[in-house]
């Protein structure tokens, strides 16, 4: 029976529940010192003086690194960085290279001391003076100075500007409203941390909490001017990322500090630093207009976003889903992007779709209400089976089934069209729904598989498990591809010296590395078959490779299951203690962010099964249903239950997959009800500084979440058939909840989060 898909428990679960799983800050080294960074206290300007003489005399202080004495790093050079695989920084700001301040909280120095307590105490005492300049601290104020970017992650950013004006004006029904979403922070439970260990002057090991060991290694090597093979990044376990654990300045900072101190150095960010230094989801102001004919057929979709960025070109792409969902003949998606002196915005779980589906899916609900159509029926009536912009068929798409199954499981038919119809004590009860969507990405990947004569299998790739289940599902795939039990398989990931894999981002890890794992296992079986065919004492001697199949740790002659030869026997007769194979798979759509490993065998996969984006559009879809109870007097909202139906291709492990979806829904509940970082306009610094004021959902906020999967393999993304699952769960959630709040109260709140002050 196939191991793939089974809801087996995580193979790393034992380590996690016993406290033995090691995260980056836990790789203490002999003679290790502790670093604590100093942060800028102005939003924009220059440091005029930084006097470290006093703190150098503080007890335990080993060194103080600032722009005055920091190691010179390679300067920014995008083409050169791109060539080195080092272009993808959280912010384009090699640390401590000059005295310029770009945002409040920017790292401007780092203190290294014998103990954490000493480093922190000394860092607080560093005397810094600034020449402050007028800073841009507020989105609305800066909008007149905003720009219209032409590119968004390689695609056209401004689509059909102005082209919906006429169809909207002539539509029988129209909604046109402004929705806003606040700054949100990722806040994985594990703070970013790095332990840097130099060997000599040119070899560096970084134990780093990163979503991509290869990426971090390439960037560190580039800026430190080291050969890539001299930088090794290790991260066996990462305590969540959600997009925040790309490469940020502290990783380079600690490498520089370790060099200056001549000792291994550990730096762990504080929660307060995670509010300023490792990215966030930028606030958006979105104006969405929809037009339909009298029958409720969409004639136009317009989605404009105002947002900002800082030290990269990235901006929150909240129009993305408006180019994918629904059959409308004209659609217009545009952006204005201002620049703020604020820590740099970055990817955060479903970048674009999270705020974007809030706006679009609330607008859809508003239109359905205007039409007096059921919101599910309205969506089904406007469903598209093709990518509306490119005209390609979706590779595999069951969105209408998601609506139908979701409506049935949730009991949607009990909803009344008119709001304020259902009461329960002090509560008004409401139902709401929304569509979920996220692209199905895939990058190049290389995977090595080895097998010992005892039958122990090791699967190796420079991928990462940020909680997603990478360890577990890789073992399941290898078990099937070799015909050995899962418990004989060890998975080694989280080490940049292993064969290359993409960073754990964009919901593409499974889709990318599993085809390569399967191919590596096939190569390994081929190697064993070659040994058996050549061996006169084998029952498979002299057979052709394509006559040989496998099962239960044996090669088997196809059609005659008595003619077998076990892996162990083949290897022992051939006096081999180990066989191994490494395979690289490259999707038609390109290598993505992965630089494929040179030493692995490239494998051909038919284009039809290999992410050919010239012929198919790859997207996942889902339907989200929420029941909310609103206490109008107190302004409080309680999500009473939630149903999520997902069409994400093949499910590799039902247990871990469900966990990812409920996790996404809970992230969405946070965005809907409570998450927001506010800033003081005068100083530009966040007035939401810690987890005491950046509220994320706690256990009591979370209802039972009912998850269903369509579970049909995507025949075109890869021979495995799985699309990503890490991000889609959050999309549509805030809209489903806001729509349910409208159904409960008749109040349409278009500004997230839906905190009590907006409802009393």
């Amino acid at each position: 029976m196939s191991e793939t898909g089974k809801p087996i428990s995580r193979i790393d679960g034992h380590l996690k529940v016993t406290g033995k799983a090691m995260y980056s800050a836990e790789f203490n080294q002999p003679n290790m010192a502790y670093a604590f960074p100093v942060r800028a206290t102005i939003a924009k300007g220059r440091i005029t003086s930084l006097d470290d003489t006093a703190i150098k005399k503080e007890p335990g202080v080993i060194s103080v690194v600032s722009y005055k004495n920091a190691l010179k790093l390679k300067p920014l050079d995008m083409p050169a960085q791109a060539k080195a695989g080092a272009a993808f920084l959280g912010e384009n700001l090699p640390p401590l290279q000059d005295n310029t301040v770009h945002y409040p909280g920017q790292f401007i120095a780092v203190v290294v001391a014998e103990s954490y307590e000493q480093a922190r105490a000394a860092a607080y005492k560093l005397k810094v003076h600034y020449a402050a300049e007028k800073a841009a601290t507020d989105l609305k104020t800066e909008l007149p100075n905003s720009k219209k970017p032409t590119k968004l992650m390689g695609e056209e950013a401004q689509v059909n500007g102005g082209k919906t004006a006429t169809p909207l004006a002539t539509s029988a029904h129209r909604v046109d409203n402004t929705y806003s979403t606040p700054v949100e922070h990722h806040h994985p439970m594990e703070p970013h941390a790095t332990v840097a260990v130099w060997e000599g002057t040119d070899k560096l090991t970084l134990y780093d909490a990163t979503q991509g060991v290869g990426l971090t290694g390439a960037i560190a090597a580039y800026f430190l001017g080291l050969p890539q093979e001299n930088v090794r990044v290790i991260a066996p376990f990462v305590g969540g990322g959600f997009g925040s654990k790309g490469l940020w300045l502290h990783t380079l900072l600690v490498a520089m500090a370790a060099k200056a101190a001549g000792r291994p150095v550990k730096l762990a960010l504080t929660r307060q630093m995670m509010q300023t230094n490792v990215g966030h989801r930028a606030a958006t102001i979105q104006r969405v207009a929809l037009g339909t004919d009298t029958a409720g057929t969409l004639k136009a979709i317009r989605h404009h976003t105002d947002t900002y960025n800082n030290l990269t070109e990235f901006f929150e792409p909240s129009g993305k889903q408006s180019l994918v969902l629904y059959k409308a003949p004209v659609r217009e998606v545009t952006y204005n992007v201002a620049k703020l002196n604020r820590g740099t915005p970055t990817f955060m779980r479903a970048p674009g779709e999270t705020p974007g589906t809030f706006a679009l899916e609330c607008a859809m609900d508003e239109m359905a209400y205007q039409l007096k159509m059921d919101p599910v029926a309205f969506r089904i009536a406007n469903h598209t089976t093709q990518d509306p912009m490119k005209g390609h068929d979706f590779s595999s798409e069951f969105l209408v089934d998601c609506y139908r199954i979701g409506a049935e499981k949730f009991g949607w038919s009990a909803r009344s069209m008119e709001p304020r119809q259902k009461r329960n004590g002090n509560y008004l009860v409401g139902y709401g729904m929304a569509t979920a969507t996220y692209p199905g990405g895939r990058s190049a990947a290389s995977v090595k598989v080895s097998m010992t004569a005892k039958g122990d299998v090791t699967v190796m790739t420079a991928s990462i498990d940020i909680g997603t289940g990478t360890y577990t599902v890789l073992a399941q795939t290898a078990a099937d591809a070799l015909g050995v039990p899962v418990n004989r398989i060890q998975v080694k990931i989280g080490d940049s010296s292993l064969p290359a894999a993409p960073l754990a981002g964009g919901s593409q890890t499974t889709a990318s590395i599993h085809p390569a794992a399967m191919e590596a296992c096939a190569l390994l079986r081929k190697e064993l078959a070659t040994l058996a065919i050549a061996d006169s004492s084998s029952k498979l001697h002299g057979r052709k490779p394509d006559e040989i199949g496998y099962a239960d740790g044996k090669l088997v002659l196809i059609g005659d299951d008595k003619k077998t030869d076990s892996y162990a026997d083949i290897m022992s007769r051939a006096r081999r203690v180990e066989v191994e194979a490494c395979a690289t798979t490259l999707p038609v759509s390109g290598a993505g962010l992965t630089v494929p490993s040179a030493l692995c065998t490239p494998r051909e996969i038919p284009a039809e099964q290999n992410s050919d984006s010239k012929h198919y559009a790859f997207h996942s879809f889902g339907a989200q249903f929420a029941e909310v109870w609103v206490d109008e007097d107190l302004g409080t909202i309680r999500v009473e239950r939630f149903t999520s139906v997902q069409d994400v291709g093949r499910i590799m492990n039902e247990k871990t997959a469900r966990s990812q979806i409920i996790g996404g829904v809970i992230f969405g509940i946070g965005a809907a009800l409570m998450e927001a970082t506010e800033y003081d306009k005068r100083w530009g610094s966040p007035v939401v500084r810690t987890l005491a004021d950046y509220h994320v959902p706690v256990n009591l906020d979370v209802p039972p979440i009912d998850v269903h999967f369509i579970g049909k393999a995507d025949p075109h993304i890869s021979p495995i058939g799985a699309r990503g699952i890490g991000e889609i769960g959050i999309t549509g959630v805030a809209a489903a909840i806001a729509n349910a709040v409208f159904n409960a109260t008749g109040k349409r709140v278009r500004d997230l989060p839906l905190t009590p002050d907006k409802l009393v």
Partner: protein
Amino acid sequence: MEDQLKFPDLTDAERKALEELMPDDMSEIITSGLKRRHFLKLITFTGTSLLATHFLGIEQLMARTTAGAPLPPTGVENGVNVAFKVNGSTQKLLVDSRMTLLDALRERLTLTGSKKGCDHGQCGACTVLVDGRRVLSCLTLAATCEDKVVTTIEGLADGHTLHPMQAAFIKHDGFQCGYCTPGQICSAVALMSEAKNGEASYVTRNVRQTGKSVKLSDEEIRERMSGNICRCGAYPNIVDAIREVHGDKAVAQVWQFADGTI
């Protein structure tokens, strides 16, 4: 058999490598298992290659250790000598008055199971049991721990046998990244005794009704576990795990495919 227990995951080649690298320590390793300090020594000999290439194997080997011998203090100011029990063994430490119990566990006793999530009492990742009650080790100064009995996540299992709460967390997938997990489990273990003692919570229907033991509803479990934040969003699974341990009844796993198949 004895040897196999001690080296369940080392290949012959790995064991040989250990013997070559650390001949002086081998007899101790054989009698009392690999300790963190051996491990650190190993790293200094090998760089990190052994560690990385055999990561899970080494970790499983280390899983048999109870606590590392305390690492020597560095940079201590206003030193305070404290002695307290951790997971059954007495630890004597000279600590900086500023050092928290959490940092003492993680940086000095190499018990890194207790996690630093916020360092300000806002997330619960550092939850440990002190004298049987759940507390936040990040806000507990180590200096205040004289004579206390501390239990961390590393002390919950009985040898190779997991604590029922640990097993239930695995079964119900009560975690994803695993970082909040030690705190969640310590908290849940303490919650079981609080329920037995009849303690109340904010969602207890009527605090005036006192009794010996309370049966926790899901809402009660959720409120009482709200001091442990999980950003991956494992809360419903955590509630399932706790309900199973609290109710002595197997709780079904609740997923299914949309067509009704499991």
